[in-house]
Structure formats: C-alpha cells, structure tokens
C-alpha cells in the first residue's frame, strides 16, 4: 500500500497562536513554517502493535482492586484515513480525569478527590477494520485558570500513530451537548465549526450495553490517501 499526504486537509487544525488560550502566547512559533517535501523520513513512522498492550489496558475500570466511582461508559469507533479506509493495527493511547474531574498527574491540584481505583490511562490497538474500544468512566469537567471561572468540557485525550510520521495525531474527544463548549478556548481554537464538531463523540445505542453502560462513538480520521486513484 502506498499513501500520499495532501496538505489541504491540514486547515482543519487549530493555528498555533490562539490568543484566548493563554498558553499559546509564549509557545506559538512566530516565524512561518518551512514547507518540506515528503521524503522517506516523513513517509515512514513507528510501528507498534499488540505487543505494547496489556490485558486490562483497554478497560480502565479493571486496573485496580475495585471499580472506580462514576458513570461507566464504553467509547468505541474506527480509525480511518482520508479515503475513509480503515487504519488497522495502530496503537491508540488515551488519558483522562476521573469522574470528579481530577487527574492523578502530580501537577493537578484541583480540589476534587482522587479515586484509588482509577488511573485514567489506557491503550489499545485497532483491529483489521480499524476498530477500537475502551471501557472507562465519564470524566468530569475541571477548572484550569486560563481566565476567570475557566472550566474544560469533559474530554478524553487521544494519541494515535497511523501509517507514518505525518499521520501522528494527538487530540481530545468531547461529549455531546456539553454546555462548556462555547467557553472553552481549546475547543474553540479550531477555526471551522464543522471540524470542531468532529471532536464530539455521539451517543450510540448500538454501543450501549443493556443494564451496564452507555456507549459513545468516536471515529478518527488520520492523514493519508491512496497514492493511486480510487476505482470508480
């Protein structure tokens, strides 16, 4: 399989400088990016498969002696390329706050309880159809001091590799109907409202498991198109 990586789709991404997100002010480059060709260095990338994933890595509710508190959920979807074809056997890493909106990270000082039964980190590898599935608890919103009364909408962080160095993506998945979207400069940093909406998972009754957990669907599209034109 041979892929090309068009640049048109890149306009879906946020700019580096988004003044409402204060963290970008001193960290956004000021000089123009240098456009470079796609050599073997860009067209290759790390390949990690099932050897990197442990048995309970995709179920964040079973990593400790007891069950975490909060609303159990299933997050599932497919990883696709720009032609809509599945990206199989690619590693996904996720991390999130607990149901109270607190990360176990040492720097997180939010005055909300830690949950001894929840780490909030998971990994899985997509199957042959590009599918993945995590079991976790719904993360809480949390304050972050970007501006007065600033709260992040509930979200799960996603990190993906895909086919090459160029398809590498770190993003965040949100939940439908969150009242904080309008006030969140990180979500709002994405210029195109339609692109923004692609980060909002949707409630999915087929993923929902009766008497057990609500299901959310989140499909992810990584860079890359078939190098040869698709057949009609």
């Amino acid at each position, binding site marked *: 399989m041979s892929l090309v990586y068009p640049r048109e789709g890149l306009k879906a991404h946020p700019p580096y400088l988004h003044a409402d997100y*204060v963290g970008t002010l001193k960290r956004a*480059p000021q000089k123009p*990016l*240098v456009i470079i060709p796609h050599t073997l260095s860009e067209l*290759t990338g790390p390949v990690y498969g099932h050897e990197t994933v442990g048995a309970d890595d995709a179920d964040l509710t079973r990593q400790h002696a007891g069950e975490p508190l909060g609303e159990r959920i299933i997050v599932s979807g497919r990883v*696709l390329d720009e032609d809509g074809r599945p990206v199989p056997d690619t590693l996904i890493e996720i*991390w999130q706050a607990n149901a109270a909106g607190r990360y176990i990270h040492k720097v997180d000082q939010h005055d909300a309880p830690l949950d001894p039964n929840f780490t909030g980190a998971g990994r899985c590898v997509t199957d042959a159809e590009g599918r993945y599935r995590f079991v976790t608890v719904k993360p809480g919103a949390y304050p972050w001091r970007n501006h007065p009364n600033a709260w992040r909408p509930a979200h799960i962080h996603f990190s993906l590799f895909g086919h090459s160095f160029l398809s590498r993506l770190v993003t965040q998945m949100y939940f439908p109907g969150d009242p904080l979207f309008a006030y969140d400069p990180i979500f709002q940093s994405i210029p195109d409202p339609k692109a923004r909406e692609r980060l909002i998972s949707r409630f999915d009754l087929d993923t929902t498991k009766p008497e057990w957990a609500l299901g959310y669907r989140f499909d992810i599209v990584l860079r890359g198109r078939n190098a040869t034109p698709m057949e009609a």
Partner: protein
Amino acid sequence: MADLTPSQTVGPYFAYALTPRDYGRVEFVTGNLVTPSTTGERIRIEGRVRDGDGAPVPDAMIEIWQADAEGRYAHPADERRPNSDFVGFGRAATGADGAFFFETIKPGPVPGPDGAAQAPHISVGVFARGVLKRLHTRLYFDGEAANAADPVLALVPAERRATLVARKAGEGRYTWDIVLQGEGETVFFEA
C-alpha cells in the same frame, strides 16, 4: 473521502499515560533507543525546550524518529529495513528545567526526494501544553559535510539553519535546544 480529525493540545497532564515511568506504569517507548543488537555510533542528545520569554518548558514531550546507522527505517515503506531490532522511535518528557535527553545511535544518510542522499538527521515532534498541534522539526549533526547538500536544509533560510544543527559537546554527546518562539526560534516544518 473523509475529513481530518483536528489536533488538540497534549495538555499538561499526559505524563502518567505517555511517559509513565514515575507513575509505575510500563513504558513501551522511552528516550533510550539502543537495544543489545543495535549497531552504529552511540550518541547522547541533550537539550532544553524554551518559550518566547526564554523560560524553560517543563511540560513538553519530545518524540524522535530516525533511521539506523545504515540509513534504514524500521517501516514497511523502507524495503531495506534494519536487520536488527532497532525501532528508531523515542519519546521523552522535559523536566522542571525544560531538559530532555535521548540515548541513541547516529543515523546513516537516507534517500532524498530525487534519489540523492539526505544528510544524517532525526525527525522530531514537539508536544506541550499551549501547543495546539505537534511541532515538526529535524535535528542535523554539526560537522557533517553532507549538510551542505541536504535538500531539506536547503529550503531553510541560511541564517536560520543553525537552529537545526546539534552541536558536538564531547565524545558521543550532542546538545540541541528547541526554542518555541522569538530569538533563535527553531525552524518548524509543514509537511
């Protein structure tokens, strides 16, 4: 036809998932790329990440991607692939002082756009709180004659090329800082 999923910042809290040694979780990738069967010149790369005020960036993650000493990538798109278990991928978080390091080998020259070789280099991705999408750059090596003919370095304004070149700091040691903004700003790419 499918539209790309937009990028978001890695945020300040990625370490317990992506670089989790301090949290007692198993890492599948670290800043040490050298395996027992890896051949080539061993090197250590040390650097710091700084922001537009010159302040250290203590919550960045650096990823590197490189060929082996013969210039071969461990990926299906490179037919020559390493004949060792060298993967060529590393990941390191910065410390409180913005510092990071990698233990690896010096990559060999890899094929360029027109079959001409590129100078030895390492592809680098920078993630951090306040960085909304990965910053993409390259590390080249000081004193490498091939730098003068490298097709990617040639695209960089001459006065900024030095930001991409790691300085030799001793036997097998290179230093290379990443400046996100302002004076001495590192050259970043769109590819």
